[in-house]
């Protein structure tokens, strides 16, 4: 139990162990622990930030969706108006065309009727002249009696 040289040996061993621990054990372990702590802190901060970003993005998306819906409604409204306008225009155009065609046809019919009536009158006049010739049996000076004939024709 007496103190002896073992003490010196152990003292040297102790010194060597402490120095070794100080140089090769403590710094890398501490470094790893502290770096990991930093990393975890950073990770937590990043996740917080990401959460905030997500909320922000969701808000933005909602706004955009609202805008898009409003825009779509507007476009549909415009399209409807335009449709109505086009239908109206087409109806107007068709009406105008119809009136046109009707007027033209009427004019044609009128012209034909006039022509036919003129023809008929001329034939009746000729017939009347022939009848009168036969009645008078004598040739009548056409020139002298033409006023009478005219009158006759008018009466027809």
């Amino acid at each position: 139990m007496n103190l002896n040289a073992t003490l010196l040996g152990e003292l040297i061993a102790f010194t060597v162990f402490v120095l070794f621990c100080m140089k090769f054990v403590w710094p890398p372990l501490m470094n790893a622990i502290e770096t990991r702590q930093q990393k975890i802190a950073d990770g937590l901060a990043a996740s917080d930030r990401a959460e905030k970003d997500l909320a922000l993005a969701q808000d933005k998306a909602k706004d955009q969706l609202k805008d898009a819906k409003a825009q779509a409604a507007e476009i549909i409204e415009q399209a409807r108006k335009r449709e109505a306008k086009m239908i109206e225009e087409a109806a107007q155009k068709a009406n105008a065309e119809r009136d046109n065609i009707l007027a033209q046809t009427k004019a044609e019919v009128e012209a034909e009727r006039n022509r036919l009536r003129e023809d008929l009158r001329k034939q009746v006049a000729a017939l009347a002249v022939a009848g009168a010739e036969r009645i008078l049996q004598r040739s009548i000076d056409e020139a002298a009696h033409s006023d009478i004939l005219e009158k006759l024709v008018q009466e027809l």
Partner: protein
Amino acid sequence: MAAGEELTLSSHIQHHLTNAKMCTVDGSIAFNKACSEAGFWTWHVDTLAWSIGLGILFLWIFHNVAKKSTVGVPGKLQCFVEMVVEFVAANVKDTYHGKSKLIAPLALTIFVWVFLMNLMDLVPVDFLPAFAGFVGETAFGMDSHDVYMKIVPTTDINMTAALAVGVFLLMIGYSIRIKGVLGFIKELTLHPFSTKNIPLQIVLIPFNLLLELIALVAKPFSLALRLFGNLYAGEMIFILIGAIGLAQLPLHFVWAVFHILVIVLQAFVFMMLTIVYLSMASSDNH
């Protein structure tokens, strides 16, 4: 049992409490009983071998983990090692407020090393000495009673004294580094009795010096003797329990369970006191 002398209880205990010694007698290496006259230059080879072996084991494990330590997800061993390191670091941070790159690794080394050495106490007391005796008898033709093997280095006062002396030297070193030689001398001579009256102060210096020196020297003594005493007593109880035959089994179990506490506690106390003493040595306000 070896041939020859009767194995009495006291000789059995004596055998357990004796270190394997090595020394040089007349220029040649001698062992054990031949060393009774060697005085200071005797080496306890079992203490040296076990303590240095355990120290290397500690540093090997921790160094391996440190080399491979990853910043990412740590493995199980790394987790354990980091837990120990963080425990020590937290204690150092709470107690030592100066800046020192030495204190924390010192505390870690003391804690783990002392713990491992104390842990040898839980190996059943007869196993390794009996094995050593067997090896000595068969391989070297020695009488197994002449083969000594004390496997708990902290039950050797040389071991605990070496640790305490190391801490003591550091205490003095830190005192001088932080306060200067003059500051250290002042601390030893001008407290606890101080006065503005200069002649009276001069008269008080010897008393102060005496008190302060006792206080200073008591620290390594208490460190060394506390650890040694606790472990020596624990070992002694194990030896006594081991000597009573079959009834030892429950007793041995109970004492071993209790001793787990002692082992960790003594390692922790030694570490904590080291930090406190060094903290006191490096703080200026006495």
